[in-house]
């Protein structure tokens, strides 16, 4: 179980004026800027749940994950993951947790994956039988068996991601943090990684937090989502509720002689707005449909839940 209570994280950064003058000035005077990456957020996640963390760049998703993984200290608040305080970095906690960052390699590039796995087997004190079992299961499911003896740096991006996944799951963690695991991958590699996460989740039932900018990842994997905006949570609930919540809105795609534009309007104003559009524009085509999940989430990320 994960329990987060009033968690806040502030980063201190320094502002440097552009240009040569700014560079000289910054040698003597530095202007401090405090960035609130997390603003008193609270959350509970049960064992076996998979939660999608969505938000624009800089919304605080990765910061939250780094705090939960014990990499970064929070400014205030309380966190308990499986009864552990993550940033105490208790070895027992680290043995039951895993973090996979799509944008940052954690395996050693100059070594073949199998060498890294052997090292991890010793670091995590994985039993020989379990190690063999896991290696077999992971390499089969990820279809990467033939690449295990090749230096990691010589693998393709998709293959490297699969190796990262394997390395992080060898010790069969009970808590998994996946930070953009499909970033930069082609469509078939994305699909393979998604399928793998799905089968791993149903087989071992870990707590999983997933961040991704690809809605396909979220739609396929996460029954529950948390939408973040500027360090806070603006929505926490089932993905299926999102469309229901926005049920009183309709989307219009209007094509005129000169352009195509999209509008989201309340259902009750549909007739009036449509007639206005026909009066004011030279309409060639008009399409009325329900807003897609992507559109709704994009709108929530931009304007928040109540002002969409």
């Amino acid at each position, binding site marked *: 179980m994960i329990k987060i209570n009033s968690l806040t994280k502030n*980063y201190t950064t320094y502002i440097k004026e552009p240009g040569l003058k700014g560079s000289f000035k910054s040698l003597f005077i530095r202007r401090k800027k405090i960035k609130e990456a997390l603003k008193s957020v609270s959350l509970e996640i049960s064992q076996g749940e998979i939660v999608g963390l969505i938000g624009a760049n800089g919304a605080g998703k990765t910061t939250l994950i*780094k705090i939960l*993984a*014990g*990499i*970064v*200290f929070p400014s205030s608040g309380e966190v308990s993951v499986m009864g552990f305080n993550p940033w105490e*970095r208790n*070895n*027992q906690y*680290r*043995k039951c*947790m*895993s*973090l996979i*960052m799509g944008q*940052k*390699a*954690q395996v*050693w590039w*100059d*070594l073949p994956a199998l*060498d*890294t796995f*052997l*090292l*991890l087997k*010793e*670091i*995590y*004190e994985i039993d020989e039988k379990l190690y063999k079992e896991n290696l077999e299961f992971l390499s089969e499911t990820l279809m990467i068996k033939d690449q295990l003896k090749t*230096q990691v740096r010589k693998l393709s991006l998709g293959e490297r991601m699969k190796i990262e996944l394997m390395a992080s799951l060898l010790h069969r963690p009970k808590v998994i943090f996946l930070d953009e695991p499909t970033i930069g991958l082609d469509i078939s590699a994305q699909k393979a990684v998604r399928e793998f996460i799905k089968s791993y989740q149903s087989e071992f039932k870990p707590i999983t937090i997933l961040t991704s900018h690809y809605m396909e990842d979220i739609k396929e994997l996460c029954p529950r989502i948390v939408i973040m905006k500027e360090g806070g949570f603006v929505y926490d609930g089932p993905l299926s509720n999102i469309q229901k919540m926005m049920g009183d809105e309709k989307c219009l795609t209007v094509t005129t002689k000169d352009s195509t534009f999209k509008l989201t309007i309340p259902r009750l104003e549909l007739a009036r707005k449509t007639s206005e559009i026909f009066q004011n524009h030279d309409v060639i085509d008009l399409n009325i449909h329900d807003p897609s999940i992507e559109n709704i989430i994009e709108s929530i990320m931009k304007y928040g839940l109540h002002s969409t």
Partner: protein
Amino acid sequence: MKWWAFVIASEMRKILAFRFDFWVTFIGQSFIQIIISISLWKSIFESRESQEMMGYSLESIVLYYLIVPVGSKMLTGENIGFLSREIYDGSFNRYLLYPISFFQYKTLTYLTYSCFYGLQLVFIFLSYHILSGGIQTEQLINLLAGFVFFFMASVTYSQLALGIELISLWADNIWSLMVMTRFLCFFFGGAYIPVDFFPQFMKDILVFTPFPYLINLPIKVTMGSARMEDLFSGTIALLVWTILFHLGARLLWKKGQHHYSGVGI
């Protein structure tokens, strides 16, 4: 096999992963050093028309400057910036995720590199003596003792380097600080000029610093010119400085980890 043995084995595999670089470093550099050292000091001695310089004969000064480059590499182990670079680019995250002490891990990787350069030291020492007419048992014992002292000095220097590199938790780029530390250790350690060439007042001061025990003493042990009391006082000094540097690094880590944001390239 324990995890630490695997770490050593993995680091060795990394060193051996690039075979061209391995052979250039191991054989190429060794012979270049032997040729430069012999020809340079031979011509200096010939121009002075003297058999001795500050107590050093031509053979002993050649051997001294043969040991210096590889001994220095053994002392400084893994490349400069081994930790600050990882803090800068965020790959340091992995050590915080693994259920092991990152201090132990980094010290081990550092010392693995030291041992690799130690093998090069053995190779150069043996090559030089074999080329000069043969090697005796006493010289082999000196070589073994020198290896042990260089290794002890590497442990001390690794803790100093850890502390210095951890400063990058506050300042993004500490390259010049690391270079300065290395220069001070090399200069006052006798890598550029043997400590015996320094004025007496300086030698008296240096006794209370870690510097002469890092390079000068291990070289003297390897050459067989160290006295028994030097070995004893050197061992104690290295032990004390190792503990002090380690405690300093731990303190820096305790304070600095609150500044770590895990971001990078």
